């Protein structure tokens, strides 16, 4: 199990361009492949990772590691996630200090950036589907969509803090769904 966690998050760490939410589909693909948890439970973990301080992708890895193999799993996942970055930073610092001015590197990023957006949109659609936002025409679906709309509005227009939005949505959930 520990080796599997290490392998999974090492690869994830290696490709986490764009960080944060772009990396969710990568982790989700692996989690579902190994049958570690449902997409719905995975969404809960993203929520908690988003509320915690620090980078979301690393937080998610720690969370999954802990759920799968306790504290050892959490440590292995965190290290696996950060090891590729550490090695690459050292490599860049040693040899390619002008990396950002290289035209080939710049061209690669020219293609990578829109892919990052694509991955995030993909994550949004998948999560919307698996969490019942587009499933049926019912009062329940409507209420979920309302929470979605209000959250998005507060984030874009009101500059609300993500952690604040999650907490508010949780309180609304407690009030209406129990």
């Amino acid at each position, binding site marked *: 199990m520990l080796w599997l966690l290490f392998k999974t998050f090492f690869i994830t*760490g290696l*490709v*986490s*361009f764009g*960080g944060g939410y772009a990396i*969710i589909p990568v982790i989700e*693909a692996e989690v579902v492949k190994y049958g570690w948890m449902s997409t719905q439970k995975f*969404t*809960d*973990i993203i*929520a*908690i990772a*988003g*509320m*915690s*301080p*620090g*980078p*979301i*992708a690393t937080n998610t890895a720690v969370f999954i590691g*802990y*759920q799968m193999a306790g504290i050892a799993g*959490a440590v292995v996942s965190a290290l696996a996630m*950060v090891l590729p*970055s550490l090695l*690459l*930073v*050292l490599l860049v*610092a040693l040899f390619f200090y002008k*990396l*950002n001015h290289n*035209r080939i590197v*710049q*061209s690669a*990023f*020219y293609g*990578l*950036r*829109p*892919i*990052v*957006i*694509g991955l*995030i*949109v*993909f994550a949004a659609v998948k*999560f919307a589907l698996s*969490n019942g936002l587009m499933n049926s025409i019912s009062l329940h679906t409507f209420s979920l969509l309302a*929470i*979605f*709309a209000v959250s*998005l509005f507060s984030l*874009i227009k009101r500059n609300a803090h*993500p952690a604040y*939005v999650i907490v508010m*949505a*949780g*309180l609304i*959930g407690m009030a*209406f769904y129990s």
Partner: protein
Amino acid sequence: MKKKWAFLFDIFLTFFKIAPITFGGGYAMIPVIEREAVEKKEWLKQEEVTDLFALAGSIPGAIAINSATFIGYRIAGVAGAIAATIGVMIPTFAIVVCLSIFYLYFQDHPKVEAAFEGIRPAVVALIVFAAYKMRKGAVVDKTTFVVAALSVILLLFLHVHPVMMIALGAVAGILLISLKDKLGIETKVDDHKQNTDYFMGADI
């Protein structure tokens, strides 16, 4: 020798203290790291640190952790890089583990289940918001718009693996730019300077 260990411990402690105060993703850490490394500790000059952040954002992984590693390396070599990285990771790691334990205990409680029922759509909103915030730096012209749209289609309907998609994106970027260069179409590829509030690793 003793002095070196003291310096490494200082690096570790500095980044250790930065981590817990930065709620809301790694990006929130950047200004705090800047203040500590440039103003308080005077480890680096302002220009150096700006370059470092741009570079840290180009490397896979969280920008905050990468920046810490970079700064650690610049001031104390490989040992400094490791000290800074571990320092910046431990507090958030500990908090997340505590939350995991909490979640394992209470996930089946009806009130907690109800809370998450409300939180899930908010998470979808957070993800859409992330795409919204990043779009300016990423979708800069018609070509990048097509690449972004195509990638969504490939991921959703042809089930291309996300890792494969990332590799394809880098290759597509190189091919597209060399093609455009041959056709004599000028393309701006270096947008780090124009979008100071946008980095590749900006995990909101």
